[in-house]
């Protein structure tokens, strides 16, 4: 049985629809700007959704809802998909997040900081008839949530799923990444020689997946998750987990490395992550496949990134368009990889999405076209 992605939506600083987001990327726009956070953190480079613009957008969906900001982001991401596909008795809501409504903790609202509280509010808001599922697996959560949706549909547990992913830009997360000395003091430069760390961002992204074939849908042809079993925060020096997950995803998709036309990689712009990926892609003989990272457009949107970047990759696949890897100038990894530097039209049939994150987690997924 195959599982298909039918429609998507993205709420990000670059737009409130998938179409607007993809257009923004094609015009080379980045969401990263200098933002003052607070006295302790100071000013950082990050991607933040403009509250005024978003509130105006949200008014067009619901004028009465008064829940937390992250709940509004989730509703805005899901709303057009639920209108289009309708909730059935066996529809399930799957939520990918690292921190959920963590800003509630700063206001001492411990109950609101529980992720089940947030997702139950959304489940009830839309009237889902099944229990929601939450995946919290660091930076691979978005890809993993999609992989779990596919597997649960294959197993017959559900016939369709609304997968939504979101994380906010909060002092909680910023302060932590600062203490990790992992933040760049400029727009980040994935895979570049002068890269010096990440930018953080925020987004909400959603897709509708089901077991029903449609020529316009995208097939999740293969996927796998593997742990490095090496270190809780540092990427593996050998790229072991990433290699294993790509191998297994390709095998399930019945594809070889030569079938892959494009890679939407993780590319956080830290020294070690990008180096690890370059090693893994070379081990897999994928070094000549055009590849990009979207982190210099959006920043790292954590639990949202895997799904947001999958949606963008699918737009590339559908429109046969390679999006340049913003921020890259000069090869900065010990082994060479084929970074996309200019926008290009190229026939795309099968593409690979990868993600890696804290806890040693790695995920890979192969998407193919049906026509």
């Amino acid at each position, binding site marked *: 049985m195959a599982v298909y992605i039918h429609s998507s939506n993205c709420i990000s600083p670059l737009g409130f629809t998938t179409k607007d987001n993809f257009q923004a990327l094609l015009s080379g726009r980045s969401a990263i700007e200098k933002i003052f956070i607070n006295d302790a953190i100071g000013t950082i480079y990050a991607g933040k959704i403009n509250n005024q613009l978003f509130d105006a957008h949200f008014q067009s969906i619901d004028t009465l809802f008064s829940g937390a900001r992250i709940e509004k982001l989730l509703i805005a991401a899901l709303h057009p998909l639920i209108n289009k596909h309708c909730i059935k008795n066996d529809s399930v809501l799957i939520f990918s997040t690292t921190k959920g409504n963590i800003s509630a903790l700063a206001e001492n609202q411990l109950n609101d900081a529980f992720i089940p509280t947030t997702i139950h509010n959304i489940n009830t808001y839309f009237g889902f008839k099944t*229990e929601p599922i939450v*995946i919290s697996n660091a930076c691979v959560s978005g890809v993993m949530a999609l992989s779990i949706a596919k*597997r649960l549909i294959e197993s017959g547990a559900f016939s369709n799923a609304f997968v939504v992913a979101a994380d906010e830009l909060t002092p909680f997360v910023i302060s932590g990444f600062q203490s990790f000395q992992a933040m760049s003091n400029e727009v980040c430069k994935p895979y570049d020689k002068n890269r010096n760390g990440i930018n953080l961002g925020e987004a909400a992204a959603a897709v509708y997946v089901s077991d029903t074939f449609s020529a316009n849908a995208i097939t999740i042809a293969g996927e796998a998750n593997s*742990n490095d079993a090496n270190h809780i925060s540092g990427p593996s020096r050998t790229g072991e987990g990433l290699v294993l997950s790509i191998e297994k995803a390709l095998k399930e998709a019945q594809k070889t490395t030569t079938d892959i036309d494009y890679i939407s990689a993780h590319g956080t712009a830290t020294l070690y992550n990008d180096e690890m990926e370059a090693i893994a892609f070379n081990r897999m003989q994928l070094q000549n496949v055009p590849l990009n990272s979207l982190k210099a457009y959006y920043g790292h949107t954590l639990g949202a990134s895997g799904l947001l970047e999958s949606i963008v990759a699918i737009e590339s696949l559908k429109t046969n368009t390679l999006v340049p890897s913003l921020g890259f100038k000069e090869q900065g990894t010990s082994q060479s990889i084929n970074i996309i530097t200019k926008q290009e039209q190229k026939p795309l049939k099968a593409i690979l999405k990868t993600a890696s994150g804290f806890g040693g987690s790695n995920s890979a997924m192969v998407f193919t076209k049906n026509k």
Partner: protein
Amino acid sequence: MYSVSKYIHIENGSIFENGKQIVDSNTTDFSEFIKQVYRNFEHIYPKFYKMDDLCKLAYIASELVLKDETEKDIALLFSNNEGSLDTDYKHQQSIQNNDAYFPSPAVFVYTLPNIAIGEVSIRHQLKSESAFFIASEYQTDYMHQYTEHLLRTNKAKKVLCGWVHCLNGAYKACFYLVETNGILEHNNQNIKQITK
């Protein structure tokens, strides 16, 4: 048809293995209790002391299930209702006050629940499938279906499922290993009993 080959329950200073009590401690404090249990293991693992409470509990529960295990293709499916809130709260305390603002990387790294999966993967060298699920209570239905799907599709040879909860001094871990042969049938009723 799959079976549960071993199950562990840790709560209130007691540990049960396959329903039989193996540890009965009168220590009410979690950190004292879990250290006692760790020190009774033969395996020396100094990293244990660096873990947050959630990881310590997941480490001990996994250790009890996997101590004689040789299979490495074991998927880890951990779950709780609070994510990493216990440590999230500590990190929040370190940034709450601008005059005493000292976020700690060794605390921050544990503000992700799946670090518990990372710690167990490192200890047992499991380069396998894994996922951390968050739900208000253990979701017997989809955990059962997802586990069997992983086994059926050869994405894992065995699956270690676990509820691992640690918040404000309260703790509970219910871990069970699912494989082809075992002592209990892998069905919803038995899972409910194990994770009660």
